[in-house]
């Protein structure tokens, strides 16, 4: 019997689990102990970082120059006119004057902004056909475009869907009064405003020898005044689906109040440094109705900095959180110092 046990000892038992660190749960582990020292240094570090960041952000944001004009209020008559959808074909021109007290230096961007336009409505967001916009010949009746996919007679809409249909179609030009009477048009760039990938990858016109034939057999969306291939009559490469304004519109906004980049200042001649101070006026062909959904329209001239626009939120948020974290750190230090005298709290 004893010899048997000796035999057993010679042959290592087969079922014995490995005595490895993993299997025995003895992996060397770092136990994040919340000691005053580690915690405090952490708090101070975070606090300092946030404060610095906040100050930087606030400073940057404040350097942004921005002009915002509510032209749906300024063009009340046009707004009223557009309220009645039967007047859709009537042109309405309106102008909005404003004055720049100081010049806006650098790249100036012109945005239009819509208020209370729920572009993020679920069914609105879905109402598009990416395949069609890529220039593919697809049957849009199977897409999400309905009910803006075909007309009753079966003619497909190009582009289809509610997003395209509701495209912002005010025509806006900016004039600068060099003196009280003479105004020159500020040169604005129509292209290069959209994402490069959108323009050259996601959007393509149907292939054909010319644009008109490419869109043959389709019809413009019901709200549109002109077909897609006439969106920009001056620039063949900014027409059809690859029109910048269209592409930008098709990138639906996250919130019901949003701005979309519309034009860029072409920095030529006296606008080489940006917009000089002085009187300006917007000439607007007012097409896009907003009063029906209690919306407002704005035009915005703004510069950009590394941290985006003029919003101070991030800066303030960083500053406040930095301050709070620092404060918490100090409070903890105080408590710790007080308790340290007791010195017993781990061994009580």
């Amino acid at each position, binding site marked *: *019997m*004893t010899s048997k*046990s000796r035999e*057993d000892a010679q042959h290592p*038992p*087969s*079922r*014995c*689990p490995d005595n490895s660190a993993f*299997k025995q*749960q003895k*992996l060397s*582990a770092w*136990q994040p*102990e*919340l000691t005053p020292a580690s*915690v405090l240094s952490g708090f101070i570090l975070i606090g300092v970082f*946030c404060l610095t*960041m906040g100050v930087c*952000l606030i400073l940057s944001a404040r350097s942004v120059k921005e002009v915002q004009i509510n032209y749906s209020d300024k063009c009340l008559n046009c707004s009223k006119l557009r309220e009645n959808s039967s007047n859709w074909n009537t042109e309405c021109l309106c102008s909005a004057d404003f004055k720049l007290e100081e010049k806006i230096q650098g790249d100036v961007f012109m*945005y239009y902004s819509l208020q209370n*336009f729920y572009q*993020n*409505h679920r*069914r*609105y967001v879905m*109402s*598009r056909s*990416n*395949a069609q916009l*890529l220039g593919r010949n697809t049957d849009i009746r199977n897409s*999400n475009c*309905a*009910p803006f996919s075909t007309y009753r007679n079966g003619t497909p809409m190009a582009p289809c869907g509610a997003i395209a249909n*509701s495209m912002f179609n005010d025509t806006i030009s900016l004039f600068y009064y060099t003196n009280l009477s003479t105004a020159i048009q500020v040169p604005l760039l129509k292209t290069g405003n959209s*994402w490069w990938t*959108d323009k050259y*990858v996601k959007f393509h016109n149907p292939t054909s020898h010319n644009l008109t034939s490419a869109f043959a057999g389709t019809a413009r969306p019901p709200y549109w005044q002109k077909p897609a291939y006439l969106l920009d009559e001056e620039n063949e490469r900014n027409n059809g689906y690859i029109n910048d304004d269209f592409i930008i519109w098709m990138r639906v*906004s*996250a*919130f*019901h109040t*949003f701005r*979309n*980049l519309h034009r860029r200042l072409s920095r030529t001649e006296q606008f080489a440094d940006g917009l000089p101070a002085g009187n300006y006026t917007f000439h607007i062909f007012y097409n896009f109705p907003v009063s*029906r*959904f209690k919306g407002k329209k704005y035009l915005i001239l703004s510069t950009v900095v590394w*941290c*985006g626009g003029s*919003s101070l939120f*991030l800066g303030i*948020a*960083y500053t406040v*959180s930095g301050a709070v974290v620092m404060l*918490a750190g100090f409070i*903890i230090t105080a*408590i710790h110092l007080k308790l340290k005298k007791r010195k017993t*709290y*781990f*061994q009580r």
Partner: protein
Amino acid sequence: MADPIRWARYHWQHLVSAEGRDGTNSSSNSSDKCYQSTKTTGKHRIVIPCLGHFKEEYEKVSKLYMNNRIRTTKYTLLNFIPRNLFEQFHRAANLYFLFLVVLNWVPLVEAFQKEITMLPLVVVLTIIAVKDGLEDYSKYKLDKQINNLLTKVYSRKEKKYIDQCWKDVNVGDFIRLSCNEIIPADMVLLYSTDPDGICHIETAGLDGETNLKQRQVVRGFAEQVSEIDPEKFSSRIECESPNNDLSRFRGYVEHSNKERVGLSKENLLMRGCTIRNTEAVVGIVVYAGHETKAMLNNSGPRYKRSKLERRLNTDILWCVLLLILMCLIGALGHGLWLSSYSEMPFFNIPEPDGKSTPPALAGFYMFWTMIILLQVLIPISLYVSIEIVKLGQIYLIQNDIDFYHEKMDSTIQCRALNIAEDLGQIQYIFSDKTGTLTENKMVFRRCSIAGHEYCHEENTKRLESYQEADLEGEDLADALCSSLSLMPKQKEHSCRTANEPLNSKSSNQAAAGCSASEGEDGASDIPRSRHVAFSSPIETDVVPDTQLLEKFNQISFNSFEQSEETDREQSLETMYITDFFLALAICNTVVVSSPNQPRQKMRLAPLGRIPIKSLEEIKQMFQRLSVRRLSTSPLPSAKESSFSESSNTFVGKLSIFRVKLASPAAEVVTQMANVPQTADRQQSPKVPPPGEQDAVDVAAGSKTCDPGPYLEQCPITILHYEAESPDEAALVYAARAYKCTLQTRTPDQVTVDLGALGSLTFQLLHILPFDSVRKRMSVVVRHPLSNKVVIYTKGADSVIMDLCSVPTDVHSSKMKQKKIKARTQKHLDDYARRGLRTLCIAKRVMSDEEYAEWLNSHFLAETSIDNREELLLESATRLETKLTLLGATGIEDRLQEGVPDTIEALRKAGIKIWMLTGDKKETAVNIAYACRLLEPDDKVFTLKSQNKDACALLMNSILEAIQKSIDAKNSHCPKLASASPGTSTPPTEFSAGLVIDGKTLEYALHENLQNNFLELTEKCRAVVCCRATPLQKSEVVRLVRNNLKVMTLAVGDGANDVSMIQMADTGVGVSGQEGMQAYVNLLFWYQFFCGFSGTSMTDYWILIFFNLLFTSVPPIIYGILDKDVSAEVLMQLPQLYVTGQNSMAYSPLTFWITLLDAFYQSMVCFFVPYFAYCGSDIDIFSFGNPLNIAALFIILLHLLIESKTLTWIHVTVVVGSILFYFVFALTFGAACKTCNPPSNPYWIMQKHMTDPVFFLVCVLATCIALMPRYLFRVLQGTLFPSPILRAKHLDRLTPEEQREAIKQWKDVCVVAHRVDFQGTSLCSSSVEDAASEKRQHQHVRHVASA
């Protein structure tokens, strides 16, 4: 919500498993049919042998019975998919997701692409199905193994017994089993090779009792000389329909001449038991397969729903409510938003007919859309994660080297996946006694004869030496015994769902090779351990007490007859001693066997003794060797000097010699066994032929005196005793140590080798077996020397003492007897205090006339039909009067190593322990004391009554008594009690123990009394249930579990279970999942800004993958690997366990705290980006991107904050998850031009990677979201460390510091404890309060999984 589902599932399982069993064989039919058939025969079953002229009738009757194939699997290949799906859809969450999938197909409410909602469900279902499939497959393999075990079945064609698989055994088959084979089906015993028609079975596989039970051949068959011929068997058997009552079997055999012979439990061999000590048996199968008692008793794998899962279900219910609330808000919001427009805005898409949906209807649709949209609030992947976490935990548990049993080469086995996490929350432990708490090794410790105590100090020393040997691991026999006790048993095991045959499997396989191959059979040691059951050297080798041996030897040299007759003072004592040992040897039902020849009982023909040549040689050798010492010294001196140096060398030599000697001796024996004619007359070599007696005596005597393990090699110990209870065996071994050796036992005679006096053969007149009413057993023998009828009685001291009358004949002996009684009682009390099992031994000498008179009445009692039991009892009582007290014994059932410490630790950990045992009350209570389940200061109440009403009354009175004691305690120190108001500790330190016996338990478990009983037990610190049947045990467990809603653990045999429970405190929670809620809430917040139109600002693939991939692995890793305190510290501070246990109490709060935190986090995670991007030209999906990233960071960092340990695995996983997300998003953003309308993610991520605002937003959101929790943890960690945190702190210290700190901690606790005990609950309660305050936070993790 959970209960009806469980109910349905349970019933379905039953239904299906019943269906599943049929169809495999023509003779096995569905149980429904079977029960129908039994109904027609009046709830009886008729068994007809499948042979000869019964054939037609057999086919008619028996085809309705199941065959012996068992199937414990749930699935078959065909039904796997439908059935598994069906089972899975019992889980509410899965149903919910199915509902979502269906909902998404409704065009009006469709939120995602139709296919995408199916994805998570399909993934989850697949994973679970694979897991279930694998589990079931292992069961299938096991079943197959069992079904294909071979047994000998009589074949009509070949007219002999042929090997057949278990599964092919049918009702009505004749089966022939050899020794140590496992019984394949319930059968009626028709033949046994034992001439007395007896067969022994071991029922350990069935009820866990390791002792042997006797079964008897059916009356009328026992008289047959030759083996029963199945061809000639023309009787039919009628018996009860299959039932699960192990202790009952009724029926009769109807012979062809219409004569009926009754059948009882004594005739039934049950499946799963093992044949012992009987060469071969033949039986006819009456129940097979799933209809056997063993299988019926095994109620099948109960679906053990873990506490976590149960709580999960309630939490999910809350989540559902929350979801509904959110959806309602969405619906209402959408309706209001729509109705705020006087005419339809053009971003609201009209219906195809040009009209718009009315706001109310749109709101209604929106409700369902929102349900789809926010579905992730009910985290489907949570179930999968938990499942995987459990797998991981079990993997670690199974690989834990601390659970490795070296001697057995086995590790812990977890059989039920779903309850691993409950181990850390056990509040009640139900433990078996034998083999779990104790080693089930009865060791003779002390005895008191004729009022004189012999404390056997040498024996105590020997036991100590064994303990050392134990530790060294050299004692293989001991190892075998412990391996035996480690065998899983038919009990509610914490980690098992497997069924009974599993246990018998391994033993059976090896059991095929019987005794001959025993030596080589090294790999599977279980069958070998069977042979040495109750006979490990620790039990068998009793070192006699010097003083007593001296006295006993004196009589040996005296003339026995003389001492019998005389009344002299000195010889009276020797007479007592002789009688005492005779009683020890005789008064039992021990079976004598030789381990070399288990098939053959040792039998002894009354006279013929054949001198064996080799035996003589042996003796000569002995003499030659020992002549130097033994011839010169008389026996006592040899014994005295046995410890001396010279003796030791002598012993050493002798032992070497004996090793050589052992084999020829064994050979002789085997040779003789091969000759059947001589087998009966065969005799073990130690019975000396007349004339050589002296020499052998000398040799034997010296051997008996040898201390230590050499003894086992001595030829004299070839005999093994197997008894119904181990203490009987212990007594016989004790007697043997004094050379009063029980040699053979047959139903009519007992032979005892009385040292120098030679063999005495007693005619065995009667055995009055032990019963719990009389609490004693008696044998009636005719003394061969005095030729008088002598009754030896052995029993509990309480009864024997009363029965001992004072002899009336001689005055002096009357005085003497009185004195003896008083002294013995004193000794008995002493033994009981030492936790020894006490027995009293008494005798009575009857005159022939008296005996004849009694015999007459006894015969009447035996033959009466009505109230036979009472009459027998009465008859026994009449016999067992006027006893003369001989003495008392103290036997120790050795506790397993470390049991008292473990129990103490468990109690410190706040766990209530119940001991459920089949043992008698006295034993149970003794053990309870010994293992410190009951403390000497405890007030022990005994619940024992004869009927229900009495039981109720008794319970009430005990309750009152307890209440009174508590009140009394309180009134002792009212000031102190009031000084600590609001303490959560009631004066539980008043410790009461409850002892209840099986009968009373039955009443107590009755519906009306249940609550009373539970109330009572809750007040008691420990509960001991004795004489409980296995079924009762499980009922008790169920009652407590269901009614007290606590975590329970039932421990069967297994020495290591206890430590497992403690280990489990390193238990783990699943955390981090609330991040998902935060994430879902993001979608909800967005609804406020999109007109409640159900827009998702995230690509839905990312939405789905977010749960399935990016955030699933880290929580799983944490779930598996996180541990708060190292095992070493935990083992030393069991108090820490309480925190895990109480998780329940604080969970509702923590759930809501977690929910609030999640709410806050989601708000931050949404509104920081919202305000940052508000009014800008950002598009929907570009806005969603920083939200995703921030959510990812929040979830992962939240885990970091919550986790207790960080290993490289954690770091890898977290970093990997983040990298994976970025890689995925970048790839997705680059590859997908048109996919996924509307949320085309093309180039969004790439664009963001160059945008500083994006990073700023993510960092800020993450910081703000996690700040409160981090702050809270910091404050908690530094200012108010919970016990767990403090213990964690200990881990970081150096070993010396740690030891010091633990000691300090313990001291504090001890002080607190003691103070508390005295009534001032101030100190401890403050500690407790502080601890409990923190507990809630400790278990955020647990709830986090919700």
